[in-house]
């Protein structure tokens, strides 16, 4: 039981708890806040995995953008502050069962593979946790330039599409503004 393991267990527990709260909490805004906690936990796990860059990006993208967006959406799509009505659909137990079965399958799968039980990483990553390598890899024609560009195009499309969808009908008619 080293320090790192303790840290991992604590973080993992918090993350998981937060996740459960996300899907379970009756108040949607709280769910969103719990989501943020869970995301932060994942970021910490990234740090534990020597992926500082990803960790920070996780915080920027998820907490800084997506979570805020979600909270915004939560606030915009209601007339009254308080949530009303049930938060889960009547057939939630079915969902629970199937999720549990899925979990069982996954766990069985994971535990079957012996290579996954290895104690620690085979090799130490580069000093800057492969940040420079990542940067070059993303713009290297022979490696990940295409996926990178595709992702950027996807983002642009999503941007425009979101605008087009969310603009009110009347505004769409009179051409924006």
């Amino acid at each position, binding site marked *: 039981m080293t320090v790192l393991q303790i840290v991992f267990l604590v973080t993992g527990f918090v993350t998981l708890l937060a996740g459960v709260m996300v899907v379970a909490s009756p108040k949607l805004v709280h769910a969103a806040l719990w989501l943020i906690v869970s995301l932060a936990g994942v970021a910490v796990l990234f740090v534990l995995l020597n992926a500082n860059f990803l960790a920070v990006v996780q915080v920027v993208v998820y907490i800084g953008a997506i979570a805020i967006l979600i909270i915004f959406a939560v606030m915009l799509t209601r007339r009254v502050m308080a949530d009303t009505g049930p938060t889960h659909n009547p057939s939630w137990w079915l969902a629970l069962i199937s999720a549990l079965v899925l979990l069982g399958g*996954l766990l069985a799968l994971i535990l079957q593979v012996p290579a996954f039980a290895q104690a620690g990483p085979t090799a130490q990553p580069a000093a800057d946790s492969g940040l420079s390598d990542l940067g070059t890899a993303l713009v290297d024609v022979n490696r990940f330039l295409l996926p990178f560009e595709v992702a950027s195009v996807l983002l642009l499309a999503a941007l425009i599409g979101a605008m087009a969808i969310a603009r009110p009908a009347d505004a769409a008619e009179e051409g924006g503004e």
Partner: protein
Amino acid sequence: MRPEILTLLIPLPPLLAFGLIVLFTNRSNRLSHSVAIGAMLLSWGMAMAVFIAAVTAPHLGEHPIELSFPWLPTGATALSIGVLIDPLSAATLFFVAWTCLAIFVYSVGYHNYGQPREAHDRAGLPPHGGGLEPMYARFFAFISLFAFGMLTLVVSDNLLLLFVGWEIMGLCSYLLIGFWFGKDSAKKAMVKAFMTTRIGDVFMLLGLAYLYSATGTLNYRAILANEEVLHHLATTPAFLGLSIAGACGILLFMGTVGKSAQFPLHVWLPDAMEGPTPVSAMIHAATMVSAGVYLTLRMFPLLSAGWEEGGALTTPMLVVSAVGAFTALFAATIAVAQNDIKRVLAYSTISQLGYMVAAVGIGAFVAAAFHLITHAFFKALLFLGSGSVIHGMEHGEHETHAHTDPQDMLNMGGLRSKMPATFWTFLIGGLALAGFPLITAGFWSKDEIFADAFANGRLLVFGTLALAALLTAFYTMRQITLTFLGQPRTQAAGHAHESKWTMTLPLIVLAVFAVAAGWAGIPEDFPLIGGLLPNWMHDFVGGTLLEHPHPVAFSPIPLLTSIGVSLLGLLGGWLVYRNAKAGAPDPLIRALGPVHTLLKRKYYFDELYERFVVAPAYWLAETFTYKFLDGKVIDGVLHTIALVAGSVGTYLRRYIDLPVVNGAGDLVGESIKRAGRGGRVIQTGRVQGYLVVGVAFVALLLSYVLLVRP
């Protein structure tokens, strides 16, 4: 650029202009005429370049500028289109380009560009004096297309493309003669022209087909510049004792008869005067009628196949010369008795074309080409001049509000002082037409024909043509005298005034050519001035033929004849009409009596055709074809067929379609519908429901993979 490419490009600008005007710029008059004239200018420039290239090229006749590529693959061979510039087409191209350009420019002024449009002018009617033509842009579109047709015809290297241009011009003449379709006479005239020329065209097409079947090609050089082909054609008998060459020649010549209004298909040309005057000039001087003669000249080797100079004429040549000579005299006589300034010119055109055709017929190839060119220039000049006169008269009417026929020469007179530019240019043109000795182009070309006819001893033709020349000079002088000399016979004439520069400038240009064109063909052995200038016409155009024709020896008789007849005619015309009074009848009426009436009614040809051609045609169409053939026979057959088919159909439907086919179809559809209604309960429309099913399935799959089949 290589001249053949340039040649290929010559006809295109007017076509583009046509498209542009029709599709885009027809709203703006300025733009439209700019486009049209600009395009024509472009073609003119290219034509001149090609012309110079052609003149400077050595032995053009043997090595013409040509470019050809396959167009329609027809089985093994292919109908190819291409361009050919040999001396004949070069010369033709020269005058066509010039006259067309002049006419384009002239039209701007003629249609009163710049004047406001009169309120009561309606499209389809000639504008009342001074108003802007309502269909200005359309006019330019039409004449652009017309120029395209003519240029195509000239530069083409085979009969097929020639025929294409030929028919385009047919269409355009139809459209343009009927340009003022509001006038009933114009409507009639357009149909008449179209129908009449169509008769000729049908024969021509037959000729084309026959020639193609006989030779397997329509290319000029392949047929006409090819000894053995010509020999084969000339020797193989076809029918009625004609050789193939003869048959084709005559058939193609029928096309000429239609196009350049030879007897008996001349009737459409005078009526064609219903169109605007630039159109008259276009059709009757520059392009269409010339096209007819051009075709005959082209086909000269075919017509004269198996004929050596000085020998006996071949059958087609006989036909051609006879028709030409007769037409020349016949039309001249009619022209004498006409009062409409443009009709006189129209008949004179017919007779001049007769000259050319006759010349070709007697084998005077060069002379015919020469006269074709000079005539194009001075006749265009005369027409434009008459247009200017009419224009002036209309202005006069407009000012005086007098209602006189602006085209009737008896209403004119004394315009010399009113419109000097028009007068002098018209005078030059008139003298050229009358063949005024030495200075005018017409003299040289006519003299050439006379000399040729005399030298080869075609005395009948010679005499006829001389008589025609006398009449020509007479009615020309009559026209000039009635129009310009003396005192104004009506107020309108009194208040006529000179036309704009856009109209006079082309007149002047053409006048220059009307004089200068003659100098290109002065015979070497002409007394005094002979040989000062090389007989370019003979050397150059003569080069077209396989064996160059020899210039005929000089003899005084034809020279004196032509001088004599022209001077005599001019003098006569002046003496008879020098003091014609206002309102007084034509002096000739007293002199000739019933003959004059006969002439004035054009030998009753129109009535003749009306009775014996048009009426039967109508009967055939109306009573026989429509009422009997179509209405009774064909419809009857069709109705019976329809009845049978209908009954069969009903039977099939009732006993096969409804029970069997529909039954099966309904069975399938109904069962599917039922199944759907039964199964739709699982489609809850809840995405999550579907997701649950999916996830559950994945989970089951996983558990199977892991537990059951490890």
